[in-house]
């Protein structure tokens, strides 16, 4: 899922301080799972902003609405009525959601309430960890299901580097060395031969380095 963190309250407050009526728009999919931008977080942020406004003697109305997904038009359209009522929308969706709302409502001001971090798994309750950089050319078949692009701090294709110490990365003792993980796993799987040879440089044109990506499925597109 996409994961992220809410921006500090002060930063959100600064964005909206001159507005009279604000909509806090939540997204009940990925960012709800990481407790950053779902219905509950929308309620908490809206409540906090209302209290801040009151304490600062600002005349401000903060309304709330959460849709199932802010990255699909069908759900974004549910925001229409409230978007038209307010001066500004603070979206607690990921960057894609914020932009989808902006695209759908060209005359509305849409501000981000989250910092989108990336694609993660829930390691345990309250812990989300990045697992995929969406490079567009997956190599997990060659690395025992552990992504060195994401999990090696240097993104090395031929690791480990000299900074690997006792299975940890030199950037922090809390960060496991991805190449140690890969080695350990391939050993268990009896596939250490996958590490023979040198992996050639990766084609990064499929990543964001090649420009914004787009997938088009002609078989699924509407004919109109």
């Amino acid at each position, binding site marked *: 899922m996409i994961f992220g963190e809410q921006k500090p309250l002060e930063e959100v407050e600064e964005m909206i301080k001159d507005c009279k009526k604000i909509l806090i728009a939540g997204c009940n999919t990925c960012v709800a799972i990481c407790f950053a931008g779902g219905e*509950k977080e929308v*309620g*908490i942020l809206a*409540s*906090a902003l209302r209290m801040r406004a009151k304490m600062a003697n600002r005349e401000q109305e903060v309304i709330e609405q959460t849709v199932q997904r802010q990255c699909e038009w069908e759900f974004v359209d549910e925001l229409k009525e409230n978007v038209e009522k307010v001066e500004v929308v603070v979206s607690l969706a990921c960057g894609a959601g914020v932009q989808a709302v902006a695209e759908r409502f060209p005359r509305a001001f849409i501000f981000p309430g989250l910092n989108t971090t990336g694609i993660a798994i829930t390691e345990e309750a309250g812990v989300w960890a990045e697992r995929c950089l969406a490079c567009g050319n997956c190599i997990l078949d060659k690395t025992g299901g552990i992504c060195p692009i994401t999990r090696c701090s240097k993104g090395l294709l031929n690791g480990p580097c000299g900074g690997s110490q006792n299975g940890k990365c030199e950037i922090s003792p809390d960060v496991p060395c991805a190449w140690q993980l890969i080695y350990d796993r391939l050993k268990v799987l009896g596939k250490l031969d996958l590490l023979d040879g040198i992996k050639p440089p990766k084609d990064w044109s499929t990543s964001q380095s090649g420009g914004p990506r787009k997938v088009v499925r002609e078989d699924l597109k509407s004919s109109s």
Partner: protein
Amino acid sequence: MNAQREFFEPEIVAFCCHYCAYAAADMAGSMRLSYPTNVKIIKIPCSGKTDVLYLLKAFEAGADGVFVAG
């Protein structure tokens, strides 16, 4: 609620567990024991039902203090 008074009396919202704290308050009532009127009790099925939103809403509505008893 936070009006200027000679003596500041805070308005307190108490979220009380149905099975213990609320029952205790109920018992106090049946024993004709009084407690300050500025404590407003809200019964919840369990103190585990407490949610940060409940606390915020109480403050937003003007409470000076909120406590959870359970």
